[in-house]
């Protein structure tokens, strides 16, 4: 019995010693061996919903060992033809000591033929990151689009990288619409445009809102978006053009600085889903006391459109404002 316990104790001590020794062992650093084939990688740089007319930006990186060859060309193939303006950078960038990205031309200007964009390298380059800008076409609205990035090297190797699919939003967007009290005051959601009284009379059936500014001493009226059909007390001093009489449901919003509309630092995005889930049935047909960075959800009288109107700026002196709209066709 005594012998057995001594044996167990010694075994335990030996195991502990071995463990300690193994724990102290240091692995020698080994220099990583680069892959000797053409390689590539890609990231999507833009965030938020993909809106028709806007850009999806990618950064496509490709590299090959110098002794193996050099880069010959880079291609991008989209499943849906990009709109006019789709292109790929022919410059590879580095960041200088001042933190500024400096571009070095490494290839010819990109050529886009239908859904394929190509850059041919004109300098001896064995590593480059090129940016690709896909302008979302109207044909892609509500659909998915995918991209295949590929690179070719002088030793005949090719490599490719798939990105997507990305859903293209159904909504539309229009930014920086100038409105002014008494002039460009009649807003059409269908046209996403502000008209003056004369033009509004000609388009009476599509005028959804009236912009006005009133500086009242007794109440906070300020900047307002009011339906033509709203109670007259919300349209003081306004004589509506003939036939302008629609009633648009509205809901005020604050602290909803959509990134696409506001172009500010806030990472908030209004997407199709927000419009789909919006219930505007019990809302008023006016919104007063609006200010810069405020917004209004609206639904047109014919229920054809839902929209979010954002105040980029509001000027009390000139009685004017700059609006941006995201609009979803129901």
């Amino acid at each position, binding site marked *: 019995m005594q012998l057995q316990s001594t044996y167990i104790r010694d075994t335990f001590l030996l195991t502990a010693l071995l463990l300690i020794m193994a724990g102290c062992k240091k692995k020698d650093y080994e220099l990583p061996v680069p892959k000797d084939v053409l390689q590539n990688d890609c990231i999507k740089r833009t965030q938020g919903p993909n809106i028709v007319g806007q850009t999806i930006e990618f950064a496509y990186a490709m590299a090959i060992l110098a002794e193996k060859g050099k880069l010959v060309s880079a291609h991008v193939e989209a499943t849906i033809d990009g709109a006019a303006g789709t292109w790929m950078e022919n410059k590879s960038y580095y960041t200088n000591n001042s933190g500024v990205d400096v571009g070095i031309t490494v290839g010819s200007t990109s050529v886009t033929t239908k859904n394929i964009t190509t850059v041919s390298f004109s300098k001896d380059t064995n590593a480059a990151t090129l940016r690709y800008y896909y302008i979302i076409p109207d044909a892609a609205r509500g659909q998915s689009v995918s991209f295949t990035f590929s690179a070719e090297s002088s030793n005949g190797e090719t490599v490719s990288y798939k990105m997507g699919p990305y859903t293209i939003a159904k909504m539309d967007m229009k930014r920086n619409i100038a409105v002014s009290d008494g002039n460009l005051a009649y807003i059409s959601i269908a046209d996403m445009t502000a008209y003056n009284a004369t033009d509004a009379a000609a388009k009476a059936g599509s005028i959804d809102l009236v912009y006005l500014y009133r500086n009242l001493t007794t*109440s906070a009226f300020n900047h307002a978006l009011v339906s033509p059909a709203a109670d007259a007390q*919300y349209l*003081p001093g306004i004589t509506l053009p003939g036939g302008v009489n629609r009633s648009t449901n509205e*809901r*005020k919003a604050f*602290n909803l600085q959509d990134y696409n509309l506001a172009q500010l630092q806030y990472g908030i995005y209004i997407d199709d889903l927000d419009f789909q889930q919006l219930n505007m049935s019990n*809302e008023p047909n006016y919104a*007063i006391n609006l200010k810069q960075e*405020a917004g209004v959800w609206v639904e047109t009288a014919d229920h054809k459109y839902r929209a979010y109107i954002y105040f980029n700026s509001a000027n009390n002196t000139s009685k004017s404002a700059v609006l941006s709209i995201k609009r979803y066709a129901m």
Partner: protein
Amino acid sequence: MKHLIIISALIMLSATACKKDYPVDDDGLLITPRAECYVSNFELLGADYVTVLTKSPVIDTTAQTVNVTVQFGTDLKNLFPQFTLATDCKLDPKIVGKVDFSDLANPKQYTVISGNRQIQKTYKVLITVQPR
């Protein structure tokens, strides 16, 4: 083995000895000895979660009324009321979302229930809309 059983029994005993049965109401809220029962503050937010009040509310704990003046153009159908109550009190009905205050002739009523759940006081929320 015998010792182990005794120690376990002692631990269990000491654990159960610390447990005290606190009374809770239907909402799972603690019933306390407090008899205070009043509204100490009131706030009213619009659909944009920004206050619609033009000045501080007037709370009359004797008449059991909350008098507020809201901005001209306030959408009275879609408001979020916020009550601040005396310690341990609760409110009935509960506020679970937007409240329609548009029927000014029949003000909304809310009952404050004290911490001991013995006292109930019903407050009326009287709204005045600021003129243009």
